């Protein structure tokens, strides 16, 4: 496709890509600061409140809120954009870039996961709330994997909290005892629960190596269980992502069956790839030798690197088709050079050009085709 849709898709993505990065950093900084519902916390902690608040740096939370607001909007921009162009280009270009970002990973594949979850950011903030389509799964709260390491766990925990309200004071006492002990930093950003169920493990000033940790009401607060809990939450978040990715997993309850389903799906996809590749091999007599050395050794994502010494000088129209794989030297997504070759293959062939517009990454063309020409064709 011509450069216009490509740039239009790439720019919001680029913005969106940079934004979640900052977003993630903010979240991390935010979590380490442990934004609190200070009033309720005060009520509960009593004497320790002032100390706690001092350590909590509320001004930073204010910054984070605004930052998140911005990034939330950017998210919605990107997401809307991603949803508008629901065809393969959006997916594939996002596949490249958003592989790092699990949010995009699931959100962008709009045709894969149309029932995308509603992303709800931290409590008390109005910022990051945007619903794609509100997931059937999303009860009052939904999981968010904003970053690789941050998870917001919403009101499901709230309910747990309410049940254990009686233990609140006990837990507090325990916490205060733990205060001087070891704490670990977690990547979790937990909702400030309205009823003051937050407990904050305050940092003792003489041990700057320790970082805030938030323990939940009525739960064990020693370091081991905290770490385990963090790990469990991470795993649950990712399982949830996977569930949304794999069709038909939403209805299954229970981790084991979901895992089975996931495994089946992966096997199915791999079998499909094999089958399709065999089909392709049958269609094309493969004459081309692939020189993978240049292909593998060079840096990824170098556009237009024509470091091919392969004998893809077999420029017969059909043989060009198999040449797409060495052609796509560095990190260019496979469909793009495919479309390229298809264009060479037939002059005005309308093959999947709308479907596979290249991302901002350029296509590496076969030696016979000039890069400009390539770009124009696509």
């Amino acid at each position, binding site marked *: 496709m011509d450069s216009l849709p490509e740039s239009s898709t790439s720019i919001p993505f680029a913005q969106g890509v940079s934004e979640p990065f900052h977003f993630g950093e903010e979240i991390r900084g935010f979590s380490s600061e442990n934004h609190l519902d200070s009033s309720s916390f005060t009520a509960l902690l009593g004497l320790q409140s002032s100390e706690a608040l001092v350590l909590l740096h509320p001004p930073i939370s204010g910054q984070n809120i605004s930052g998140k607001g911005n990034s939330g909007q950017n998210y919605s921009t990107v997401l809307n954009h991603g949803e508008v162009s629901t065809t393969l280009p959006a997916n594939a270009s996002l596949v490249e870039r958003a592989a790092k970002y699990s949010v995009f990973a699931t959100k962008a594949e709009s045709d894969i996961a149309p029932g995308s979850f509603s992303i709800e950011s931290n409590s008390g903030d109005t910022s990051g709330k945007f619903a794609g389509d509100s997931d059937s799964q999303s009860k009052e709260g939904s999981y968010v994997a904003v970053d*690789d390491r941050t998870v917001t766990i919403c009101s499901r925990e709230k309910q747990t909290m309410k049940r254990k309200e009686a233990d609140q004071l006990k837990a507090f006492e325990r916490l205060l005892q733990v205060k001087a002990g070891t704490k670990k930093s977690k990547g979790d950003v937990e909702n400030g629960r309205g009823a003051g169920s937050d407990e904050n493990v305050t940092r003792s000033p003489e041990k700057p190596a320790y970082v805030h940790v938030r323990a939940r009401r009525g739960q064990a607060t020693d370091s081991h269980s905290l770490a385990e809990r963090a790990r469990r939450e991470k795993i649950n978040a990712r399982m949830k992502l996977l569930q949304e990715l794999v069709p038909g997993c939403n209805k299954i309850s229970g981790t084991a069956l979901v895992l089975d389903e996931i495994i089946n799906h992966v096997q199915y996809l791999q079998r499909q790839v094999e089958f399709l590749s065999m089909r392709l091999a049958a269609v094309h007599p493969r004459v081309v030798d692939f020189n993978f050395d240049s292909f593998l050794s060079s840096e990824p994502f170098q556009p237009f690197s024509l470091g091919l010494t392969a004998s893809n000088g077999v420029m017969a129209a059909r043989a060009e088709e198999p040449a797409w794989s060495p052609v796509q030297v560095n990190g260019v997504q496979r469909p793009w050079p495919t479309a390229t070759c298809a264009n060479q293959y037939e002059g005005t062939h309308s093959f999947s050009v709308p479907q596979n517009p290249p991302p901002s990454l350029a296509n590496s063309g076969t030696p016979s085709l000039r890069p400009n020409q390539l770009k124009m064709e696509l």
Partner: protein
Amino acid sequence: MIKLASDISLASAVTPKKAWSRAILERFQLHLKHGRALKRVTVLNKKKKQEVCRGVESISRPDKLRGLVPGGERMDYCTLLEETADYIKCLETQVKAMADIVKSLCP
């Protein structure tokens, strides 16, 4: 052969931050340097041994998943789930793209 090429191209297309793409690339590099299918055979043998010893049904689910996802042998569970999500996404893209190719070339 095509499968190999497509896998590698896919792996290199994806940002190599993901472990599975690196695993695929490494696998192929070993192919080149040390002769055919050395590494792959090693991995496969390991898995087959597991199967033989334990019986196919009794392989635990995470292990199955590890066997499926390239490079999954060395990951902890948490990372494995993440990589699986990414891998699934990319496999789907791959399948779509290849289906398009086939559709266009064999009317």
